């Protein structure tokens, strides 16, 4: 059902999406000639307790897209994000990111893959014993970069998130919004072409959440593809970007310029 819906979407026809979505599981890797960044092909995720977190997910994200993943709690959004950053492997099916199949990626290649993806989470994941500068620099220190390179790139990233004046502050001295900006800056130091965010505004008040969204829009406008799992209805409605609804582990709707409640209502009506 999901890919029938997607196949008929006018925007997808315009963007010349690869034809693999309508074909069967046994297809060879799709054509990634600089167009499709993410492709899920009949992906299933079953946990050891027997729960199917994801069921036959088919999804394709072209380069430069801005995709909201919405759906009720426990629908499978976070599972999808975890698969996307190869924290877990799919039980069945294939996931391609930039043409590389994640399920087949060797463990030693994983760090190199993660360096190309910017990750942002609801709980910021900042290290409390480090200052703003150190937190952002940490992403480069683990690569063994020189101090000059670190300083230059950290300054640039902190400029992007407008936090240059708070270099020496510790996370506990910052507001939630500022902490999320630091996390975004850390994700940006590798200049990723793909940003994945799991509920990045979940802990923030509406005004701050909006500021954070502006940042993501800016990052997207600069050319990065953004995939964001969110519950934030206002933001989804205001931005009118692509909305993928996940319910009960399945993609039940995929709208090019969707609204949160419309998407959920439509899927509820269908049910």
């Amino acid at each position, binding site marked *: 059902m999901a890919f029938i819906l997607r196949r008929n979407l006018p925007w997808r026809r315009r963007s010349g999406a690869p034809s693999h979505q309508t074909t069967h599981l046994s297809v060879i890797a799709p054509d990634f000639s600089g167009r499709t960044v993410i492709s899920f092909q009949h992906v299933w995720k079953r946990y050891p307790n027997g729960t199917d977190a994801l069921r036959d997910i088919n999804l394709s994200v072209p380069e430069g897209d801005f995709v909201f993943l919405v759906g009720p709690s426990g629908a499978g959004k976070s599972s999808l994000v975890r698969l996307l950053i190869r924290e877990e492997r799919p039980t069945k099916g294939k996931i391609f990111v930039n043409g590389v199949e994640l399920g087949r990626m060797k463990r*030693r290649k994983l*760090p*190199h*893959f993660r360096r190309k993806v910017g990750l942002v989470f609801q709980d910021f*994941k900042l*290290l409390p014993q480090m200052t703003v500068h150190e937190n952002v620099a940490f992403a480069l220190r*683990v690569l*063994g970069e020189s101090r000059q390179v670190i300083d230059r790139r950290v300054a640039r990233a902190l400029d992007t998130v407008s936090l240059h004046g708070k270099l020496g502050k510790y996370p506990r001295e910052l507001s939630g919004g500022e902490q999320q900006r630091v996390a975004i800056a850390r994700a940006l130091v590798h200049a990723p072409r793909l940003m994945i965010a799991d509920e990045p505004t979940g802990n923030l008040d509406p005004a701050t959440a909006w500021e954070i969204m502006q940042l993501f829009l800016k990052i997207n406008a600069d050319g990065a593809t953004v995939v964001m799992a969110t519950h934030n209805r206002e933001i989804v409605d205001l931005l009118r970007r692509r909305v993928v609804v996940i319910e009960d582990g399945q993609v039940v709707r995929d709208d090019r310029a969707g609204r949160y409640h419309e998407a959920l209502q439509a899927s509820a009506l269908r049910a």
Partner: protein
Amino acid sequence: MRLFRHLLFALNSAWQSFWRNAGVSVAAVISITLILILAGVNLLLGHALAGVLDSYKTRVSVISISVSDQTPLATVYDFKQQLEADPRVAGVTFVTKDEELQRFSADPRNRDLIANIEGNPVPAKLEVHVKNLSDVDAINNLGRTWRGADRTDPTDYQGDFIARMVKLSAWLTLAGYALMAILVVVSVVIVMNTIRTAVYHRRQEIEVMKLVGATEWFVRGPFVIEGVMTGVLAASLALGLLLGAYRPFVERFRADLFFIPLSYDPRFVSTLGQDLFLGGALLGAMGSYIGVRRFVRI
């Protein structure tokens, strides 16, 4: 340069982590120190016993074949050559009747006996030095079946004693290895648990490292270094304590523990130091390596 920065980061992280979990780290160092002291005592006792066993072995690995007075000298030399060609034999010495009598007379216990006998009643001998204790039996059989041997008392072989020596030596070696194996397992488990605590304390940092693309060994390295640090610190303490106690202990208990041949051997101290440091570092590395493989996954 990049490698150097990685190493610096790992050393720095290991040092910080060691002191951040000071309680657990110190407990681990003390436990490993005690284990290494036990290992050291085991080595010292083993060394002392090995010395005594070696001297016994040297003594019992020489057997004398008594030569009959009727055996022509040419036959004796033929048999001597045959024995020397045997790969199990280290050397053969021919002791003539006169030489043997001189030796016999030199022993004060035989003085009365010599005074009462005439002529030379002792036989000439072939003293065979056997390479391995376990081959003495075979060489003894060779001697006994040699037609030139003295029929009444062909060899001085004490089969029972040698068999017991070989057995005792094997058991002591086995016991030493078993004790060492137990000590290794216990210390590896202790280091593993220390590393588990350290991993738990640094779980946030590890999570962030994974997210920003740190390699597996970048994440694991500091823990392995921390394990090695624990082992080396414990080895220093154990060596200090053992060296401090070695000589006074030997001097104090040498008389009381007469059944254990205690002796102070200054040459063995450097061997002991090497073994303890190498052992400590290896135990630390092994424990932490197993620990990070279990608890740190990318």
